[in-house]
């Protein structure tokens, strides 16, 4: 069974390559669907495959850059990427990230920073999950009310509409973001980007996990455009990250290639899959992923505090198992949607 193992020329280890392809495929599908880089999903998988951790970050970022290009191009073809909005957000994110990183350095002097940050992360994930649930409940209520009146709910109606209040602030320059179908002060996406950047810098995460819901609930982006625009940001930071981490000698290109085979196909599929899901369903599935992440982090946190080794393993199973279930749901629904579309096409031709 030697052929199932590939020798990595830089790290010198032999890796089970089908595992890397499958991991890439899974993370590609979820990343393309949710609009995230998904480093938090990859690390536990790489750990299991015995990937040398010294190379994990660089390899992870490089493969993320490659797959984000795939899904950004695909989303752009669907009209899901608002480039001006993405750039405005990115300006804020860059500044915010620096501030977040500085806060971490300050907190490090106090000590126990890791524990506190994990708790903050957990609270944030719980907040996102609660927001998605509230959003779903409100939207269903609106739909019910509209049905009772014999009307149809506007397609652009949302459940949680905090952005409507923020849209009223018209500090110049006010811009129209065509793909996002919004006209807002340029300061809004920049400030939202800044805040999400501070949080990402503080928590040491890429930020897709918080930027995507922020684009929906605070900027007022339609869900599909939020996914595409967020991926555009992930792509830029991923490309830059590839250079910096490789310069530090932390990238195993062969592993990147192998992962990209799965991730490229997966990212393409994940992006196409959004075509067959309503915005609210994407948000609910996103909320489920956030819930799984929160559960896994909570288990890890308890395992660390009380020194319970097996709970640490359970947290890995939780994240990988939970995300696999979500992936199966996405693939099944997308395949059904594709079949239906092809059948409709054939019927139209007949």
């Amino acid at each position, binding site marked *: 069974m030697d052929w199932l193992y590939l020798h990595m*020329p*830089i790290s*010198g280890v032999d890796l089970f390559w089908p595992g890397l392809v499958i991991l890439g495929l899974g993370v590609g599908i979820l990343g393309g669907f949710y609009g995230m880089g998904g480093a938090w999903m990859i690390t536990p998988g790489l750990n299991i495959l015995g990937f040398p951790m*010294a190379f994990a*970050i660089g390899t992870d970022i490089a493969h993320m850059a490659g797959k984000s290009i795939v899904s950004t191009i695909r989303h752009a073809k669907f009209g899901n990427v608002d480039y001006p909005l993405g750039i405005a957000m990115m300006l804020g994110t860059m500044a915010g990230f620096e501030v977040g990183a500085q806060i971490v350095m300050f907190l490090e002097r106090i000590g126990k920073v890791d524990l506190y940050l994990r708790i903050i992360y957990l609270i944030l994930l719980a907040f996102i999950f609660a927001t998605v649930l509230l959003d779903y409940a409100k939207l269903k209520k609106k739909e019910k009310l509209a049905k009772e009146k014999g009307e149809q709910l506007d397609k652009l109606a949302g459940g949680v509409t905090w952005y409507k209040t923020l849209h009223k602030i018209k500090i110049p320059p006010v811009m129209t973001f065509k793909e996002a179908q919004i006209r807002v002060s340029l300061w809004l996406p920049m400030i939202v980007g800044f805040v999400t950047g501070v949080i990402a810098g503080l928590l040491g995460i890429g930020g897709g996990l918080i930027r995507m819901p922020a684009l929906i609930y605070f900027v007022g982006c339609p869900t599909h455009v939020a996914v595409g625009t967020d991926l555009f940001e992930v*792509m830029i930071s991923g490309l830059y990250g590839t250079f910096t981490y490789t310069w530090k000698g932390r990238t195993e290109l062969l592993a990147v290639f192998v992962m990209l085979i799965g991730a490229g196909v997966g990212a393409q599929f994940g992006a196409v899959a959004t075509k067959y899901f309503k915005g609210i369903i994407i948000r609910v599935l996103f909320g489920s992923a956030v819930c799984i992440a929160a559960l896994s982090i909570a288990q890890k946190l308890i395992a660390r505090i009380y020194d319970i080794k097996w709970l640490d393993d359970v947290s890995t199973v939780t994240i990988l198992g939970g995300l696999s279930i979500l992936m199966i749901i996405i693939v099944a629904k997308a395949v059904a949607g594709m079949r239906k579309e092809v059948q409709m096409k054939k019927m139209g031709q007949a």
Partner: protein
Amino acid sequence: MKKLFAIIFSVIGLVSMIPNIALAAGQKAPPLVVVAYTKGLSGLSLWWANLYNDNMLLFTILTGCITPVAGILIGFIADYLLSLTGIDLTKRELAEH
């Protein structure tokens, strides 16, 4: 496509002014010197490992260029394969919040 590449390159220039944006996986990398072990390697693997040991700049440039190109190539292949299914890959009908 041209628009996308123009945006990518201009934004990369912009982003490069702020090093910490390359954050995705979190923790900062502590200083670490890793030397690739070349014994037993041959051909392309040997050349690649030697490049890592001797010329990190070229290694970085090649990795940074090969990765997105590979991503785009795989993307195009996946795009082609998906188009064989007969689905419309040019537009989506759902446009809602």
